């Protein structure tokens, strides 16, 4: 059974009615067809109404939807010949971050993305998409390898944040993220980032320094989770809704702040409703921007990325 978010209840109700009608014996009467098509119209309207008016907190729920497409789904729907590459060569493999070689319309590229699980067992294996230092050291290694062999890098961001644990601190979570930023800043190949679900702070940024950044319509990206922000500033995690508004974490906000380049439209009702249709839009974004970046020299690509991040920030002088 698919997960239903509470504000989606009216949609699900009409869908159930439709299912019931379609399964009735003695179908195909004109009356029946009319009924079905009017319900279908109603469904489209209700869905559009709800999804056009999502509050920031509702977007947080959609971004975290357990049926939302994850990195491996995008890999399957966008690329061919994916070969996963493992390990940081220092400590161990981190399954919360998937890395590998793949082909995009026949061209070799490096793909890197957070990976959440679909159920408890998978989530324990994937650590809920929360990466440890060894994961970031794996991606650093592969960013550098892509750079060495002049292959473009495509990253998919979807994490609650870098893992906050004893081992992570002992092995230098801060250093691992910091070094990742430096490695990405130094790349002389095209890099494209897709904010696909949850953009959770430093753990997201550690793979998100693309020359071009696209963000799925209902994804979120902020410096802290709404719950974390609420518990610090309001001293009460139940203010998460208010914090979600204050943090300006929606794709529309981030486009206005010039943090992302493009909002990637989701199918009506959210990406979780249709993985292939979502992937098609994401692919279009990647292919278009990659073509543009490939006209640049290595030095231009480096400088383009440097200037992009150099200019982020708002202040008075």
């Amino acid at each position, binding site marked *: 059974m698919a997960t239903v978010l509470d504000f989606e209840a009216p949609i699900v109700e009409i869908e159930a009615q439709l299912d019931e009608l379609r399964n009735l014996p003695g179908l195909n009467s004109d009356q029946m067809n009319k009924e079905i098509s009017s319900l279908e119209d109603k469904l489209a309207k209700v869905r559009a109404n709800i999804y056009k008016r999502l509050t920031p907190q509702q977007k947080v729920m959609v971004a975290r939807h357990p049926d939302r497409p994850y990195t491996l789904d995008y890999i399957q729907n966008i690329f061919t010949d994916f070969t996963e590459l493992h390990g940081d060569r220092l400590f161990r493999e981190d399954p919360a971050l998937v890395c590998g070689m793949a082909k995009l319309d026949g061209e070799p590229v490096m793909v890197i993305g957070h990976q959440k699980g679909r159920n408890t067992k998978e989530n324990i294996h994937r650590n809920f998409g929360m990466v440890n230092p060894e994961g970031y050291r794996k991606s650093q290694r592969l960013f550098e390898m892509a750079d060495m062999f002049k292959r473009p890098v495509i990253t998919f961001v979807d994490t609650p944040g870098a893992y906050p644990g004893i081992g992570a601190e002992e092995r230098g979570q*801060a250093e691992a993220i910091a070094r990742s930023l430096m490695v990405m800043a130094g790349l002389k190949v095209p890099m494209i980032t897709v904010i696909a679900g949850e953009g959770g702070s430093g753990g997201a940024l550690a793979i998100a320094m693309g020359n071009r950044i696209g963000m799925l319509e209902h994804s979120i990206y902020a410096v802290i989770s709404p719950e974390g922000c609420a518990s610090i500033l309001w001293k009460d995690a139940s203010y998460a809704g208010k914090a979600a508004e204050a943090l300006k974490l929606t794709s529309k906000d981030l486009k206005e702040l010039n943090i992302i380049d493009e909002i990637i439209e989701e199918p009506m009702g959210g990406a979780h409703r249709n993985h292939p249709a979502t992937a098609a839009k994401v692919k279009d974004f990647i292919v278009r921007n990659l073509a543009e970046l490939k006209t640049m020299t290595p030095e231009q690509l480096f400088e383009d990325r440097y200037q992009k*991040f150099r200019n982020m920030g*708002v202040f008075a*002088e």
Partner: protein
Amino acid sequence: MGIRDFLRDKVQKVNTPDQQRKEIDEKLWLKCSGCGEINYHKEVTKALQTCPKCGKHFPITVREKIDIIIDPGTFQEIDENLKSLDPLKFKDSKKYPDRVKAAVKKTGMNDAFVSGIARINDRPVHIGGIEFGFLGGSMGSVVGEKIVRLVESAIEKNTHVITISCSGGARMQESILSLMQMAKTSAALVKLRQKGLGHISLLTDPTTGGVTASYAMLGDINIAEPGALICFAGPRVIEQTIRQTLPEGFQRSEFLLEHGMVDMVLHRQDWKSGISKVLEFFG
């Protein structure tokens, strides 16, 4: 209580009213929050606000930290006019601009970062640091921009860079813009490295979150203040995640040294000589 304290107590009890006596006590004597020993105030000042008995480092301002490191009177501030705006119109229990205003009044600074050009043993350097007293030393757009300008100026004038960190991490009131300062400051250090110039990062109590996870951990040499909390996720966050109490000394400077994250832990009295040696090596 030592005999000196005992006699002083007796004498003062005779001569001064209670309130006045308390004030004199506080001026002359200081109880160490680390070892509990009573220290003569002048001794603590002479030891650069550290406990002469146990070596505990008491908080000082960023300007005091800079003064410990550089040749006296050589600091020329740069970029002092940068001020925070409120691009997100952020409001929790207070409005962000009101928080900034209060911090400006409290610290006399325009934002949490002070930077400039100075000399260390007559060698020119670029040096800048975060003031914790200004909104917990959080890194917003101004702090990020000033760090990048410090690095850019160092590249232009061909000097090494020293940063002094002391921060609760990101400035939540600037959300995503604050996060991007991590990318921006780290990227600037790539350019510094390309020019063959060095970055010495001095991490003081506390250095956490997005500051640790960006430029502060990216020193060619990382130096930690003794006993400082230096981490990515704060102890409270970790305890909530794993539901265990953390071991004694976890995420303190000495722990970081043991785990290979910093090159050395240096007492304030050794900052200048230690940094000078590194600068000499950098050439």
